[in-house]
């Protein structure tokens, strides 16, 4: 009962391109499933465009407004061009996280490759947009104006390090949360089985069982929270460069 077995990548179909292994795997399947679910849910919910929304339409609009509010509160109306990106990130991460809560389902976001790629994409957008909008004033991000000269020797290295740490913290936070939570659930579930088959002590199996029930609840919270944190931090990083004046 290896608690890490659930994270194994299983190849469903071999596919090589220019000698690189791009096989269709359980990760690919669940990533596409998440996308299909999001598109299906939003498409189905908004099919009527009713003036007075029904239940499904209310849900889609709630979802939409939730993300829109997040974007508005961090970047203002100016940053609304990033809304589709943030919406995609939030919807994808949330759906992947929640899909992982099903037994025997694969959690796409429990892999550093996926979270790392997502966070690198966010940081790339930040850097590219920052340079497009501000040119070389982008570097003012590391040197906020209005400080005594002596402080710049301290502040600038700190700012650079913190900027470079962003993609890592963004990626590792999500991946570690997902992996640790799922491993924990698996470990407690193993305890239930081990204790349950331990003869006279099998009554004790109720203890890890109850704990696991609580952990599952917690994991649902974390699944939502980490998606929210990922999207919110993306918003905040983008808001640094989408502001009219950088480094204030």
């Amino acid at each position, binding site marked *: 009962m290896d608690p890490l*077995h659930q994270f194994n990548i299983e190849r469903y179909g071999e596919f090589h391109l220019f000698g690189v292994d791009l096989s269709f795997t359980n*990760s690919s399947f669940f*990533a*596409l499933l998440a996308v299909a679910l999001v*598109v299906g849910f939003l498409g189905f919910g908004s099919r009527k465009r009713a003036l007075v929304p029904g239940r499904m339409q209310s849900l889609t609009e709630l979802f939409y*407004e939730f993300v829109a509010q997040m974007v508005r509160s961090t970047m203002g109306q100016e940053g609304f061009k990033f809304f589709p990106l943030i919406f*995609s990130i939030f919807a994808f991460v949330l759906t992947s996280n929640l899909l992982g809560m099903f037994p025997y389902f694969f959690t796409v976001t429990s892999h*550093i*490759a996926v979270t790392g790629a997502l966070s690198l994409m966010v940081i790339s957008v930040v850097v590219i947009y920052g340079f497009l909008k501000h040119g070389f004033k982008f570097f003012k991000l590391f040197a906020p104006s209005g400080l005594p000269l002596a402080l710049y020797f301290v502040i600038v290295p700190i700012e650079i390090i913190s900027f470079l740490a962003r993609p890592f913290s963004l990626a590792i936070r999500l991946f570690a949360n997902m992996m640790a939570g799922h491993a924990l659930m698996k470990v407690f579930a193993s305890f239930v089985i081990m204790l349950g088959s331990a003869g006279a002590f099998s009554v004790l199996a109720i203890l890890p069982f109850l704990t696991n029930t609580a952990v599952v609840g917690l994991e649902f919270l974390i699944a939502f929270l980490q998606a929210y944190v990922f999207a919110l931090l993306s918003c905040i990083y983008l808001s640094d460069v989408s502001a009219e004046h950088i480094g204030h």
Partner: protein
Amino acid sequence: MIVFFDTGKAAEHAVEAPGKIVVAVEHTSGGMPQLDFSTFPSQIFWLAIAFVLLYLALDRYLIPRIGGAIEERKDRIADDLDMAARKKAEADAAMLAYDKNLADARAKASFIAAENRAALDEQLAKETATQEAELDKSAAKAEKQIAKARAEAMKHVEEIALDVAADMVTALGNIKTDPKKLQKALDTARAGSAAL
């Protein structure tokens, strides 16, 4: 002979190598599957496909649709609120006009009433005066008639008194006399007392 194989490959090896005891063990490459870099290109490749699909669907299709519905509703509500505000303003204006009309009508009514009352009073006074004058006139006429009647009555009283006196004189003193003589005597007596 006992051979250990990965779970996935155990079956095919069992076919390949009959007679051997094949034990399937879980694949333990040692460490986390997350750090198996050979799976990275595939994961990232398919993630990119999935994410681009999601982004395009949201950006081109779903966000305009959901956002459009929300915007439409907001516009509609704003329009309705505007309309309501306008209607309220209109109602307020109408109410004001109504109040003004009512006040005007009241003022006019009280003016007309006052005017009517003055006219009535005037007419009443005139008629009263006419009536009073007429009454006075007829009263004077009546008084004159009464005075005349009284004078006449007094005259008759004298005549009757004289007649009675003459009769009494005739009856008492057997003196033949007539009222005319008595009248003369009376007049003389009156003149005498008047001279006193």
